């Protein structure tokens, strides 16, 4: 096992100059990074074929550690850059990595439109329910009643459910996992990358430093247990009564549809344009 891990580290991480990383000890971001690497390894993709683009936040720092074509964009805009890359070179496997604030506050508009448009991109969103990097301000996924540095008297807004939002916006593949259910996360990310079309994988994660500390769950282990106890598999949830699911969230695949893919459709546009120009 350790040997396997070491092999993967040597194969995919950039050792030169980039470590130690910026994340706090116990942060869930590392588990998502591990899951992403294992998924890519299992898919057998060439490193040269992969573009990993992130936004800004603790999560946004991930690309710098891995040996792909990597891009650290502006806050909330990773999907817009990814759109340009994918359209320019459809053969590349383009994966974006965003935080919850990144993807659904400042980048919310890009997120729903990317889902609607259906380019073959994979969007991994690390949802730690808080703005980690800037010091614990509330995000669009901070639960009602929780505390944040900008919600010292208790949060009065209501949270987005990211995966459900993606389903409604029309994403071809939507899944949710957690950093506690690491093996499932590997599988979901692998399925997301494999799926042609726009895929969203929401990874529920722990930020014990900025979220936990203000909400009486100061250590990563307790936060992990919280994730374990509140996650319900999608298949099981279908058989449960709505009130039993009140404070729970589902994990697994939420949507998997066949939709025409933008780059395939655009190739048809090109063919039409050329044949009309010849006439």
């Amino acid at each position: 096992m350790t040997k396997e891990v070491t092999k993967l580290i040597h194969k995919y991480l950039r050792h030169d100059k980039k470590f130690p990383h910026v994340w706090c000890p116990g942060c869930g971001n590392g588990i998502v990074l591990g899951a992403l690497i294992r998924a890519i390894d299992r898919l057998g993709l060439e490193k040269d074929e992969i573009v990993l683009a992130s936004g800004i936040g603790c999560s946004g720092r991930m690309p710098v550690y891995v040996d792909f074509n990597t891009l650290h964009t502006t806050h909330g805009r990773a999907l817009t850059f990814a759109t340009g890359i994918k359209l320019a070179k459809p053969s590349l496997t383009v994966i974006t990595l965003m935080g919850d604030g990144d993807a659904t506050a400042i980048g919310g508009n890009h997120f729903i439109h990317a889902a609607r448009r259906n380019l073959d991109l994979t969007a991994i969103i690390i949802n730690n329910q808080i703005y980690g990097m800037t010091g614990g301000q509330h995000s669009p996924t901070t639960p009602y009643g929780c505390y944040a540095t900008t919600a010292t008297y208790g949060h009065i807004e209501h949270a987005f459910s990211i995966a459900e939002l993606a389903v409604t916006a029309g994403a071809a593949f939507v899944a949710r996992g957690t950093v506690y259910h690491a093996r499932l996360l590997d599988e979901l990310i692998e399925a997301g990358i494999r799926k042609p079309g726009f895929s969203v994988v929401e990874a529920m994660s722990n930020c014990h430093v900025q979220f936990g500390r203000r909400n009486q769950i100061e250590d990563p282990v307790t936060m992990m247990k919280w994730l374990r106890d509140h996650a319900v598999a999608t298949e099981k949830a279908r058989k449960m009564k709505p009130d039993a699911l009140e404070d729970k969230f589902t994990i697994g695949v939420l949507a998997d549809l066949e939709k025409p893919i933008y780059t395939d459709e655009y190739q048809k546009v090109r063919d039409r344009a050329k044949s009309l120009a010849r006439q």
Partner: protein
Amino acid sequence: MRTPSSKNRRLLQGNEAIVEGALTAGCRFFAGYPITPASEISEMLSVRLPQVNGTFIQMEDEIASMGAVIGASLAGIKSMTATSGPGFSLLQENLGFACIAEVPCVVVDVMRGGPSTGLPTNPSQGDVMQARWGTHGDHPIIVLAVSTVLDCFDITVQAFNLSEAYRVPVIILSDEMVAHTRETVALPPVDRVEIIDRVSPSMPSEWYVPYEGNSRGVPTMAAFGEGYRHHVTGLVHDVRGFPTQRADEIQAFISRLFQKITQGFYEIQITKSFMMDDAEVAVIAYGSVARSARRAMSDAREQGIKAGLLQLITLFPFPRRSVESVLRQCRAVLVPEMNMGQISREVKRVNHFACQVEKYNRIDGELIRPDEISGKLAKL
């Protein structure tokens, strides 16, 4: 001189000539969001780009358009967006990314009256300083201004060439008047136009240092997916492209960004002189106002005034060498603009001579007429 053959003569609108220039320069990606008076550029490229295996996409806003343009350029495709004031404000954030990550691309701003929604269908030159300083932080930038339909073609080609040669975003400032004026122009045959492409690395990938300067200060640029895996970030980075906090690396990096433009100044500084040889008074103008100024100058000559014109095509880096020689030569200079004096302030800044610099401004959404300029010239 170009010999206009009747075959190439076409009746074009300014926006259309920008499209022709972009396609000739090798632009194969456009992302934009509709806005008057720039929309025709999007519409025409949505028709033309797929015909040449290029890509057109209408994004959800101008922030997204600029992001997509940068993404496509990073993947090796020459790309562009076109907008007007409100959209130009929105895209500034990602324009800064193109500056710091040295991503070649072209941004067209067809100026209309502002601030805010302002005057959507009237010309203005109100965005000059925004083009220079619109994105935050200290950064060099290239800004070019078009004044005729033929300019729209020529300058768009130049804009792509400069952006590729220096790895910088280049801004083209047009205005509603230039954009919608129709003129018969003779476009040069494609094979007669000089096209510059970014220099890609040729060394083995393990030797590639993505942000290492060279004698020109312009690093070679590898496209994503070509074996030169590297990191691109909007954070200040070291030569490897990795974020740095080291003062020596920060200093070296920001200095190189400026230095490459300073070093290329004479190539980047584009101006046109008309009847300047014996001029005693001169007009310094750009954009559609330069067109009125040309007429005004010949009218003034008829009245016996020794007038000349310096038309600025490059607005930034400010073409101080050309401006200084006019200021040195002339008794007085007039700077007419459709704003409160954004370039006249630059002219005054470099005026270390005994030259009188006067401004003339209109901010009512109307074009400055030749008789207004010649009237002012007569009083200098």
